């Protein structure tokens, strides 16, 4: 019993450390990738090729003056940045990142806990991230953040629905909510081959949930200054960004598990490379894709975004489910 608890704790610690590393270097990657896409260099001053920049950013933000907006609703104002980072940390518990290994005679699963409703759990915890934005926007007692908060509430409800529907196809194919089962299913062939439409819809909905361009309406800086975090400064501001990049990491990880074969190597002659490394490679690729998208496209307008979700994505996701079901019946699924 105690050993089991220690194992879980160690796994959690490692995952948390890796997540934080991803968050820190995610910010750097964002700036580096955008720099190179734009024929610039990006951060270059701190450390070799700017590798210590996240540290410098963190230190700087930590020592910045903490400004609290006047007439703000203090409790929610402080609560919002804290909520921002919680969902991602909760979510890492169910993401498998490798095949079971045997260490000191114990079989250790490379996942903190393999619950049988893992996907539902992910959806459930991710639904909390909207509160950070809504509370941040409302409690600042300022019009631009409020607009950002309102937009985000509507955007979130719409895209959470589509996100859920898009992964339904995967669940139907595999027949399980467990991420481990889903990855095992993809040992020979990636899910993206069976569910290409679902993958596209998932990526779009995930980008929208992450509030990233072309769907970054809640924080569209050219319209709403900073959206929900306009009035935030110092550590609280940093927390929002920690949350954003942590959510990006988790979303990418889920995409890898659901569609890109998890920790399995894509080609058999490379299968000697350990699973977790494959997992990280794929994760970085999806992460990069999100960055790449952001620095290429213009932004949707808010109402276009809603129309896009309800009139195009939602029917597409439903069609995907129907088609999956139809194919399963036709070719001897159920």
């Amino acid at each position, binding site marked *: 019993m105690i050993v089991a608890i220690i194992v879980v704790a160690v796994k959690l610690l490692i995952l948390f450390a890796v997540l934080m590393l991803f968050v820190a270097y995610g910010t750097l990657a964002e700036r580096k990738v955008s720099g190179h896409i734009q024929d610039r260099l990006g951060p270059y001053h701190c450390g070799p090729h700017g590798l210590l920049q996240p540290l410098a950013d963190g230190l700087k933000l930590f020592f910045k003056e903490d400004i609290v907006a006047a007439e703000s609703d203090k409790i929610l104002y402080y609560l919002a940045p804290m909520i921002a980072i919680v969902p991602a940390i909760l979510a890492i518990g169910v993401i498998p990142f490798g095949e079971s290994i045997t260490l000191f005679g114990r079989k250790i699963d490379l996942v903190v806990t393999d619950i*049988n*409703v893992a996907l539902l759990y992910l959806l459930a915890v991710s639904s909390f991230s909207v509160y950070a934005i809504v509370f941040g926007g409302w409690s600042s007692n300022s019009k631009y953040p409020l607009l950002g908060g309102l937009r985000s*509430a509507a955007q979130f409800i719409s895209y959470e629905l589509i996100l859920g529907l898009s992964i339904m196809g995967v669940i139907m194919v595999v027949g399980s909510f467990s991420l481990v089962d889903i990855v095992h299913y993809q040992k020979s062939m990636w899910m993206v081959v069976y569910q290409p439409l679902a993958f596209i819809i998932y990526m779009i909905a995930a980008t929208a949930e992450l509030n990233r361009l072309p769907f970054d309406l809640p924080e569209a800086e050219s319209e709403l200054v900073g959206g929900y975090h306009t009035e935030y400064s110092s550590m609280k501001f940093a927390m929002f960004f920690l949350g954003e990049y942590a959510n990006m990491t988790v979303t990418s990880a889920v995409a890898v598990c659901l569609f890109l074969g998890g920790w399995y190597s894509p080609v058999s002659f490379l299968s000697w490379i350990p699973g977790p490394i494959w997992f990280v490679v794929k994760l970085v690729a999806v992460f990069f894709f999100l960055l790449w998208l952001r620095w290429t496209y213009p932004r949707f307008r808010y109402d276009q975004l809603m129309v896009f979700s309800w009139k195009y994505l939602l029917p597409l996701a439903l069609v995907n489910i129907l088609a999956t079901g139809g194919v399963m019946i036709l070719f001897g699924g159920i």
Partner: protein
Amino acid sequence: MMINAWDVVFFFLAGLILLSALGVVFIRHPVYSALSLLANLCVTAILYLSLMGAPFIAMVQIIVYAGAIMVFFLFVIMLMNLSKGEYQERAVPWRLLLGLGAAALFAFQIFILAGEWRGVLSPGAGGFGVKALSHFIFTRYILAFELVSVLIFVAALGAVALAKKKL
């Protein structure tokens, strides 16, 4: 007296549920009231998950309530941008009395009914999987299920019709 660890969990969660329920009723500010209800629903979900072995219901509870309904409530509260005066209400003693009286009557009824329910619930995991649940929904309760879907559809239409100024 032996204190079962699960009992401690139950009383802890029940306490939280009641506390947050009190919050919903007595906090003046609608945002905090809604926040309190959110806490209430989440703790209830944890109760389902930990003691009743119903992870599916727990997750659905969070997804539906936290992910949609409460966001929706907050959205409306913020949209209305209520001024300070709007949510300052005067306590109405006779209504309070009325409420308490009705509540007591109802409680009495429930307790009479519940008199025989004295079985011990086995806490912890186990219980029904998603499969069993879906089996019931799509066989015995298929009519109810379809009716609920019609209800939701009608509700969505009605909401649009009500809230939209110009159709």
